[in-house]
């Protein structure tokens, strides 16, 4: 893996996410998030997980973010709605906390002992490899996700649908 590419993608990802938080306008924020998803997909490509990379784009940048934007556009926020009351104390506290966390992580980064991860075998990250793992070792997780999504869909429909008073 080329470290320069890694640093480039990582910087874009983090930068865009930070920008997303700082944006006043939700649509612009969503766009920043999309860009960060794309660079995240780039990181996956560097890790030779091409399938996951494409999934990242297809599911997050494609479907989910489009839905996000769709909802934001439906809400049709006015400029006045976007102004929130300034809370200097919370802002200050959040700044301190996140600053401390970042400093801490950066300092600790150098100290992490090398962990031996299993070498990536031939065919790593391909559809076949992921599929066979998903249906052997992690099959129970896969099934639980299936149930989770089923229940989630039913719940969303149920809570979201308008009652027809007849």
């Amino acid at each position, binding site marked *: 893996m080329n470290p320069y590419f890694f640093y480039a993608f990582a910087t874009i990802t983090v930068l865009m996410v930070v920008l997303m938080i700082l944006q006043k*306008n939700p*649509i*612009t924020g969503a*766009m920043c998030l*999309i860009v960060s998803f794309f660079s995240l997909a780039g990181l996956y490509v560097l890790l030779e997980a*091409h*399938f996951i990379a*494409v*999934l990242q*784009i*297809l599911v997050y*940048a*494609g*479907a989910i*973010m*489009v*839905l996000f*934007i*769709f909802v934001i*556009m*439906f809400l049709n926020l006015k400029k006045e709605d976007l102004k929130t009351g300034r809370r200097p104390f919370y802002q200050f506290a959040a700044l301190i906390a996140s600053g401390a966390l970042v400093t801490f992580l950066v300092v600790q980064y150098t100290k992490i002992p090398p962990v031996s991860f299993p070498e990536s075998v031939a065919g790593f990250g*391909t*559809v076949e490899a992921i599929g066979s793992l998903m249906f052997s070792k992690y099959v129970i997780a896969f099934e639980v996700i299936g149930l989770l999504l089923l229940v989630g869909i039913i719940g969303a429909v149920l809570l979201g649908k308008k009652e027809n008073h007849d």
Partner: protein
Amino acid sequence: MQPFIDQIISECEILQGLPLWFSYLIFQLIFCGIIFVFVAVFAMLAGYAERRVAGRIQSRIGPNRVGPQGILQSLADGIKVFLKEDIIPTHADHILFRLAPYFIFIGMFLSFVAIPFSSQWVIADLDIGIFYLLAVESLVVIGIVMSGWASNNKWSLLGGMRSAAQIVSYEVPVALTILLVVMYSGTMSIQGIIMAQGAAPWNWNIFQTPFLFVAFFPLFMGSLAEGNRMPFDMPEAESELVSGYNTEYSGFRFVIFFFAEFSNLYLIGALATVLFFGGWQAGPLPDFVNGLLGIETPLSAAIVKNLVELCVFMFKSLCLVFIVIQLRWTLPRVRVDQLMNICWKYLVPVAFFNLVVMGIWMVVVPEYVTDIVALCMTACGVLLLGYFFYRVAWQLKNTKARLRFNPLS
């Protein structure tokens, strides 16, 4: 692509002096350029063809002034649009407004990267090519929604929202259908899917099983909807929304939208060809042509072979493009609720049903039965086609229409 470039390098002495990565880079860039030119030319010609077809269908002539039979009409239009003032509305979101067309164009262009025009002429034969095609499509959606929102115009916004709802919905049946084909071919690589088919119609995916035949329709309708084509062109419905999401665009930015729309037209045809009609598979045709021309050097033979395959692919996909153009001028636009009903109440269940039954079929039914079924289905297909032409002839006879076989008359 790589074997082809290798072959060129081995034939060409100048290139052997250069480092390998450099010549690869050069050739990739050249092919990208070719694709770019192809997209541009196709957009021009398709625009012209569309208007001529529309003319014929509506019993008028269509553009016939600029150049012979008006063939340069699109060029003239292009020049006109280029000369227009490039306007960005004052209250538009400037950054997003400028960014949106590029998103759309990049999304379109990235799709062409994975489209195989022949056995060797494909810029990148990805392991997960078909999946990749679905993914980059999402860039286009984002671009459309972005342009709709950034214009700060209610027509645009409505168009953008309709487009988002429509594309997100129709992606489901399209993906499910593609999954069916992937399941049948056992690969996600586009070349692999084509390779699993054959040149003869009874080897095409569409005639393999009844389910694949049925599956073609969700795919075709879904890609029409994703490409905002009639009868699903709600996002830019001229009679309701002026021009939908691109209402506020002018000048070069509008040209990009125009390009994207017509390259998408080609993608619809190409995708269906790849998945269901055997792609570039030409069977013994390349060898026959080579024999006819008496070509012996391997490089020329390879070029001819690829050219023949390219022609086959183009023929198939352009036939489909022609059908799409005809559909635009024959069918009325559907309403929004009908659009959603078609997707969620018909296409998605059909696609799901197909997927499940097809899986069972693949496990249960022995191979020789599949072969027989394929032959029968091909026969049915031919009969259907024959019946279609019979009906056309019958209509022509009864209406006593005067036939004009020259398309340009």
